[in-house]
């Protein structure tokens, strides 16, 4: 491709010398490497007509366009994380050329090395808790006999629901603390928009954990137990992963452990 017609799309960084099966890139493009000392960037040269800066700007608010490149970018990183440590790059991650990319990496080399070092030997696991079953309160009681009785019932039911909610919240927080105990780091995000997640059940927890690969089995076994205990309270726990550690890629100042905006 003519240099002016292409952009360099970067997926993430792996430790130089990592052995991995190179996956296919975005839209079937080739994935190649750019090595700067101990850091190796995985990149694809893409047509500027398809993925140049102007195209990004034109489509930055188009959910369908974004979804496609998001899924493709993630597909590559997912394949990589299953074999080796990777520091994922946030989109759009495009550069005019490899020289520009190299220069940028050198300028931030210490920061990037530190970020990758923190992730060595780790993957990300996601945990979401849902309220799947709300027990109706007072359903078995005999019907109210008066207006006052009815209002008293409603008030008591509201109190019961508030107490139940507090109890559930405490249980979910305990689950999170337990999982965090088996992790190197954790990050809590807002519950997902139901229209996006397609889930109607209230989401009570949306968290990510940085877990040593060696601890994966133990973490999952622990999550199974926690799911059983939550189920008694009408809740469920779902674990996803292993993920590229998106939630733990950023600066060392702990900013990534704060909730997403």
């Amino acid at each position, binding site marked *: 491709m003519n240099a002016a017609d292409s952009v360099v799309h970067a997926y993430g960084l792996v430790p130089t010398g990592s052995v991995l099966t190179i996956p296919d890139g975005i839209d079937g493009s080739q994935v190649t490497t750019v090595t700067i000392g101990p850091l190796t960037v995985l990149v694809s040269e893409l047509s500027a007509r398809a993925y140049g800066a102007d195209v990004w700007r034109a489509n930055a*608010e188009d959910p*369908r366009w974004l979804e496609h490149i998001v899924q493709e970018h993630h597909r590559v990183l997912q394949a990589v994380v299953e074999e080796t440590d990777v520091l994922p790059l946030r989109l759009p991650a495009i550069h005019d050329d490899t020289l520009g990319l190299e220069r940028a990496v050198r300028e931030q080399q210490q920061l990037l090395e530190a970020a990758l070092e923190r992730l060595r030997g780790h993957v990300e696991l996601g945990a979401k808790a849902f309220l799947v079953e709300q027990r109706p309160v007072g359903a078995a009681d005999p019907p109210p006999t008066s207006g006052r009785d009815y209002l008293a019932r409603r008030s008591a039911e509201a109190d019961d629901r508030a107490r139940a909610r507090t109890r559930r*919240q405490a249980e979910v927080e305990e689950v999170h603390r337990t999982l965090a105990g088996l992790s190197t780091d954790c990050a809590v995000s807002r519950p997902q928009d*139901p229209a996006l997640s397609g889930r*109607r059940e209230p989401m009570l927890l949306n968290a990510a954990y940085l877990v040593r690969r060696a601890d994966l089995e133990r973490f999952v076994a622990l999550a199974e137990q926690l799911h059983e205990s939550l189920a008694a309270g009408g809740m469920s726990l779902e674990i996803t992963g*292993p993920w590229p550690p998106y939630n733990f890629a950023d600066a060392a100042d702990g900013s990534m452990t704060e909730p*997403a905006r």
Partner: protein
Amino acid sequence: MDDSSSPARRSDSQPTTRAGPTFVGTRGQPAQSLADVLERVLDKGIVIVGDIQVRLLDIELLTIKVRLMIASVERAREMGINWWEGDPFVSTPQAMVDGQSEGDTRELQSRVEALEQRLAEAGEEIPAARPAETTGERHERS
């Protein structure tokens, strides 16, 4: 996500992490849902400050747009998607992170309504992409 990795060539000190998600709890859900992927790829990950800067859509706005793309508000209500309204004891998802309150929910609701109003006034069809326009951010080449 389907298993996209073939058997790995790997260094002996690096165990292969099995492809495919580990799933505890409700089965039949997508292993890595669109929501799961979007909130990670668009909102997380490290940034190499490079030559090309593009300001991406705020992810909250993006999810609202996706919602509008999926259904009108009325249709969404029919489908039971009504997180912005209703009995806070029952239907509001509980945000344990920042103690989202009824007030937040109402504020979010009015923001959504304002956005819908703007889109309707603009006569905009979702999801047609708007013609390329500058964001007003010109990045100087070094």
